[in-house]
């Protein structure tokens, strides 16, 4: 039996009050409890940067759904991270329009600048590089997304400038705290 064999962290011990409050709000506007799954994942990710196994199990327990089902949701969406990611996650569009307008060069430049491959995070923990199938900006391709920001009509230089800037902001913020 499920309950017996699977030891789950108790959600009230694991999830913070702030997280629980936000999840509760989502539950209240959904038809069923488990329908809040996607939002709950987003909420916890917003607080913690990514969804660890423990987070996943805690959310599943809280929503009274199976961890298998929630894992299905979590791994289906490419904006839910099931591994630790850097402060900035770069989603570089690799679909056809971007391919036609210089994606390859942008990718090469980004990889070289950061010294990482797809799926990796820089040593300083700032950047993670991921591919993304279409960001919906074909008319302004090549495109990438970092956080909630879209960067369009990229060239290798432009892309690196953007990364430089982000690095600077991160440094100055890091100095503040």
């Amino acid at each position: 039996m499920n309950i017996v064999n699977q030891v789950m962290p108790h959600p009230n011990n694991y999830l913070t009050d702030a997280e629980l409050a936000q999840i509760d709000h989502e539950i209240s506007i959904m038809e069923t409890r488990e329908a809040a799954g996607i939002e709950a994942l987003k909420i916890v990710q917003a607080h913690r940067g990514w969804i660890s196994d423990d987070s996943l199990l805690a959310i599943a327990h809280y929503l009274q759904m199976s961890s298998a089902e929630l894992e299905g949701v979590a791994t289906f969406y490419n904006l839910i991270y099931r591994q630790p990611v850097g402060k900035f996650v770069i989603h570089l569009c690799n679909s056809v329009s971007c391919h036609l307008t210089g994606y390859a060069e942008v990718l090469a430049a980004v990889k070289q600048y950061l010294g990482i491959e797809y799926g990796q995070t820089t040593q300083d923990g700032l950047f993670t590089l991921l591919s993304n199938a279409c960001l919906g900006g074909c008319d302004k391709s090549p495109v990438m997304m970092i956080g909630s920001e879209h960067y369009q009509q990229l060239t290798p230089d432009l892309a690196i400038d953007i990364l430089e800037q982000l690095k600077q902001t991160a440094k100055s913020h890091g100095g503040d705290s």
Partner: protein
Amino acid sequence: MTFDKQNSQVTIYIDDQPYQVSTDNNLLAGVLSQKLNLPYFCWHPSMGSVGACRQCAVTQYQDENDQRGRLVMACTTPVTDGMRISLKDSQSEQFREQVIAAMMTNHPHDCPVCAEGGECHLQDMTVMTGHTHRNYQGEKRTFNNQYLGEFVGHEMNRCITCYRCVRFYKDYAGGDDFGVYGSKNQVYFGRQQEGQLESEFSGNLVEVCPTGVFTNKLFSAHYARKWDLQSAPSICAHCSIGCNTSVGERYGSVRRVMNRYNQAINGYFLCDRGRFGIGFVNGEKRLRQASGIRQSSPERLSKLDVSKALVHFRGKRFIGVGSARASFEANYLLKQFVGNSKFSLGLTERQMQLASLHQQYLSQYQPVSIADIEQSDFVLIVDEDITQTAPRMALAVRQALRNASIEKASELGVPHWQDSAVRTIGGQELSPLYLIQSMGTKLDNVAEQVIMQSTAATIKLLNLMTELITSNAPLIDIHHQGQQLSSLLNQLVSAKKPLIIGGWSRQSPQLLSAIMSLLDVLTKADMPVRSAIVAQEVNQVGAISLLDQQSLSVEDILENVKQEQSSEVGGIIFLEQELSGVSQTQLEQLKQTQLAIIALDHSENAVTALADIVLPAASVTEGDGHYVNYQGLIQRYYQVHPNRLPIMDSWRWLTLLATTLFAEHPLAKEAQSLSQLHDDCRQYDAKWPMLPLDDHYDIARESHRTSGRTSKTANISVHEPKTTQSTDGYRFSMEGSKPSSTAEMPFTWAPGWNSNQSITQFQQEVAGSLLLPMTTQYLSIAQSIAKYCDHSEAVVQTSQANALQFSQQIKWYQGDWQAGLTPEFTLIESTNYIFLSSDYASQQGWQSGQWLQVSCMSSKDNAPTSVIAELFFDPRLSDELCYGQLNELATFDVKQVSLMAASEKQVADYKMRRKAEHTKAEQAQQYMLERLKQQDQFIPIRLMNGGLDDV
């Protein structure tokens, strides 16, 4: 599943040929029903269509003049009158070939090491589409595999993402520990974390998967290709449902169990007890030699040896203890030989009362078939955890619950076979299921209501329901459960096809009696109520049909043993009887008796341990006989491999014993075959069931592709051995009639269809009845034991201070002694646990996850047994109730427990003991495997291992 079937046939044109096709199913099913070849993956006859794989594309034309047509997916297209399609046009042919080509870009080239090879639906479909060249030069997607437990192997690289596995496991069978992960080209099917699959239907993944992602681990460990297996139609021997199976063997050891399609019973699916519990046949506990008989030749036991050993008992009477797992024939013969007044089934007094009620039930009602259960629109299950005691029935109940959404969809014009659409429309709406029970079960989360209470309270509640229906009285005021009860009763009386299920597992005659009173008033009120009573063992219904007024209970036997030390009784014959319902003290009593104990069994147990003479009986796979399922349906199982003498069918042993012991009895003559035995019995007893034993077929048990016919035994002799002769209509040979010459096919195969999905070629229409009729002969059962009368004694509880009512949860891998001998079943045993109400536990200051010492008072043994169990909470329980699993007490008899916190040392000791047991089971598993592989070199055919005067 097919609710409100409108079965109208229309004419459709396939490549300009007219065909009569049913509008009740989709176009793919229609095409396949015509025995035409159209490849498919995601569609399944029992699970309907989702249109995921795009493999069954056909071209549909507007009318005769339409030359271009358009591609449609046959599985998502309804059949309409006069529709015109083509399977042969180049457009759809090329499309189908390209779909396979795309799947093949990722599918590995590992067919030689794949257990599915030779019976792979993907191989079949690839050949069918004409995709014969590999053009793809790129890299293949790869995955890490998971450990999915002891039974199911995982090889994700082979996946073609048809989604059948998850649709079966989750949607069809209600499992929640399996899912689909990722997206695009990275789609993964498995568990969230590695671990034993929790569903009792996990083995069906092996058959549902069109390729080799999910494989039978036990089969893979000791493997043979499908075409090298010798197979026979069999009946699952592990519960009272009687699912039809096809068992495969090679070199004398059984390799696997596959589903054998029977529309009315198992359909396309088996439970894991049936599929994986076959290990006992090859097990270490098997009895292969007789003991207690002086053999004149050390190699061979002769009939004369047996006679000599028994001759001094001639003229004495014997007590005969039959069993619910021995064949109908063997039980019948035993009763005839020992006489009515000396016949027993090893049932306790209480079980005799149950048997009496069950006889009465079967004489009044025709229990509903598994297929008919799926048609129900209301289900009430009374204190029987069918998910564990009769899993296949629980699977059917799950399908019945979908009828509400199927009906809702049909109102919107969506046909039942549009699986994902129906599920979306239905949402969480289910047909009503009511559970009145004393423990949690796996059906709880699909039930409209779970009434959790003691068996005693359930009996009262049922009696109240009976009264209310009789008197038509208003409910709400009379009973504290009024609200619950009124919705239950309202739905029960307004349902069109209501179903009530009960069973033996609470061992309560009062409960069974209360269920029958309820059935009685409903039937008298002309309500269309249908029912099923789940028995414990495979031939329980057949066995109890033989009981009469004079039959003995276990208590009677012990009384006899005490008194008749020197009387006319010479001994006791135990027929495949392990006396699981008997306490240690009672066994001791038997041990001390002067009476000769003769035990016939296939494996060692408590009874063979104390027997003076042990005779090795055939297990289900070496035997030939009939079992009677919970409905009274008489079904035959056939020899899969020749019995290695002196192992023989129990009915053969009994007739042999009778020639010495009961020589005057008309049946005391050795029958050459089962059909001859049936002829003899029919002459002797006019009431003997008339069964058409079609033994004239001569169907080959081996496929026509079997390797090594002449060389299998070449290490022993280069001369081709004579094949073992058989008399049951099937040959131990690759020569003979084709498997489909009868409805009882040893295996299923059709040209171009090597997997089990070839069954479609032998059905009237997809998921319909077989082309050749199945024998459906029911045993007529009369009430012949004294009628049960309720003294209501057991309801009165002699309650001790602090004692709780305990209900033992018997798991699917524990309910049957034979299957329990399979080492893997020990490996998956969970640790002891107990569920309490959170209120009670917090009063005691106990926490969830804490270990308790449980003292169990059994009604049989006076001294309480003490065991350790982990505590969990179930808020639905009242304070005086608890349930759980205490492995040391695999019995239904434990009634009361008292609890206290366990010491750390006790817990540590327990865990150590568990670990040791686990290691032992792992070693047993390894040892058995090594021995079997070794044995493959020494082929046990009759000629070389004769005895009992075999020529």
